């Protein structure tokens, strides 16, 4: 048979929008197979909506600032004040809603900075394993990983002026090495795969190999870790604000509310318990979401078809 006599194929290439819808449907199926992931997604969306629209959804938006109402201080949860009031008469629920803003703001900024930095350094070190690039990046990473995160964050926040920005700087400085380690491990094994070699032999640029051949295969663990990390960054932020190194009063922060309320435990329990529950719910939500993302991005038998 002549090579040029081509077989007549039944051509049926799906359009871009069909492919997009199909991918979306498949991903949602994989994500939603575990009902807990959906619960996590709902919690996370709810927290985001509440944080973004806090001035509109909070019952007493003014209570988020320097508001004082001694007549209504120390009230237990009731229909007027769903989660009670604190020692100077501010609505706990409203303050929690506003505290979500700072918490999410911090988590997003920390990850937006530390994730690309960590990932790019990890890719470089992994692909150039055994060269001076690897040595410099990974030894620096080791130094950061050797210091206990909370201690380092405390030290940085303490040296700088205690406020939300400096707490974020502190957390960012200690967060990127985890991404570097994660990506480094994957990149060192992916660089030996034949598809990377094939791209090199075709003559593809280093940029293409790092970001088009290697990086896409690292995305699943990166996104999973990112979703889980939002929770952990918020927890660390809460720990910093608990010891007074985060957002300064009167702006509410979850850790600071727990800390303030703890002086009145156990009689005025709502001042401590509800902000603590808020922290737990946020972290739980992001953890469940992270599990769902991992299921969704996992390559496996379900990709066939």
């Amino acid at each position, binding site marked *: 048979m002549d*090579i040029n006599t081509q077989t007549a194929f*039944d*051509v049926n290439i799906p359009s871009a929008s069909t492919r997009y819808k199909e991918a979306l449907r498949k991903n949602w199926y994989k994500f939603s197979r575990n009902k807990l992931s959906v619960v996590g997604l709902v919690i996370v969306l709810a927290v985001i909506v509440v944080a973004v629209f806090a001035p509109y959804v909070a019952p007493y938006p003014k209570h988020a600032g320097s508001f004082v109402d001694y007549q209504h201080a120390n009230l237990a949860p009731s229909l007027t004040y769903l989660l009670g009031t604190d020692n100077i008469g501010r609505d706990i629920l409203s303050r929690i809603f506003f505290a979500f803003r700072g918490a999410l703001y911090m988590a997003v900024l920390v990850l937006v900075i530390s994730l690309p930095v960590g990932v790019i350094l990890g890719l470089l070190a992994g692909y150039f394993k055994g060269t001076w690039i690897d040595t410099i990046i990974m030894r620096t990473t080791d130094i950061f990983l050797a210091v206990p995160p909370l201690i380092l964050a405390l030290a940085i926040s303490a040296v700088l002026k205690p406020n939300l920005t400096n707490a974020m700087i502190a957390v960012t400085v200690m967060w990127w090495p985890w991404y570097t380690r994660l990506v480094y491990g994957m990149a060192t094994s992916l660089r030996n795969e*034949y*598809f990377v070699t094939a791209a090199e032999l075709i003559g593809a640029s280093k940029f293409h190999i790092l970001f088009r051949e290697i990086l896409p295969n690292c995305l699943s663990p990166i996104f999973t870790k990112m979703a889980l990390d939002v929770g952990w960054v918020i927890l660390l932020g809460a720990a910093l604000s608990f010891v007074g190194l985060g957002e300064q009063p009167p702006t509410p922060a979850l850790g600071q509310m727990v800390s303030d309320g703890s002086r009145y435990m156990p009689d005025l329990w709502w001042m401590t318990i509800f902000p603590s529950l808020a922290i737990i719910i946020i972290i739980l939500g992001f953890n469940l979401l992270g599990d769902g993302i991992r299921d969704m991005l996992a390559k496996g038998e379900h990709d*066939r078809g």
Partner: protein
Amino acid sequence: MTEPIMELKDLKRYFLVHKSGGKQVFVKAVDGVNLTINQGEVMGLVGESGSGKSTLAYAVMGMYKPTGGRIIFKNQDISVSSAKRSLSLKKDLQIVFQDPGSSLNPSQNIKQILELPLKVHGLAKKGDLDKKIIDLLQTVELSPNYMYKSPATMGGGERQMVSIARALATDPSFVILDEPTSALDVSIQAKIINMLLKLQQAKRLTYLFITHDLSLMRNIATRVAIMYLGKVCEMADTVQFFKNPMHPYTRMLLSSIPVVSEEEEALKPQKVVSTGEIPSPVDVPPGCSFHLRCPEKTGLCTKADPVMIEAASGHFVRCHAYAKM
């Protein structure tokens, strides 16, 4: 027609294993190979696992820098690593790997995989890209429907066809096929082999076909070289090679091919019992590296390493038995 396109001159590739007592210990994966491949031929390179045939291919591709010797491609010395090779050389020299599972990026679709060579070498304009990719798919007899499939959803044979399409995308003149069918089902093997041969004819390609399957070589190769412990021990035209195998190792290999009928059995050389296994290339036996397994060994074989001689016209063998004649 018999213009040499690729010449390997005393090619060596050693790997450092460890240092013992201040002495460096090497694996001599490829140890002094001389091989000339002519324009338009299918050179079959056969050997057991560990004989160094893949290392040889990878050195030619520049994945390893040769420890010694030279690689001449189209009268140009290319004995450097691929990082130092020019783009036009990379375009001219391609490889198809054995494992279709790991040679395609699982996070890309077929279109993304096939457009890389076209983009890198500027072989298609933006608007033509889809058409070019469909053309490529059709040269390997795949339907254009595969464009947006992911490698994970495809079978091994289909993936190998995509690998072949990618290797041919740059329109190379020399293609290394590193056991392209050994990971596949027998039925798909035949299909791929036929396709490769058709493409070789149509595009006037030169193949270096690496395999451990001698019977396959009889059907497709124009010349066959046998490798043992990093060295070529016999090389001849395919017809000559199968009619008159000279090296005891070749005869051992040929007689161990499984056959289905008595007639086929009669075609094989006299039964030579295969004994032993390929020794470790770290600790190569002295003298002829094959003497431990050789049924015809003499005192000379344990002492001196034989040299390659032309025992008959175009038939090279590295054995003391033929040196005497």
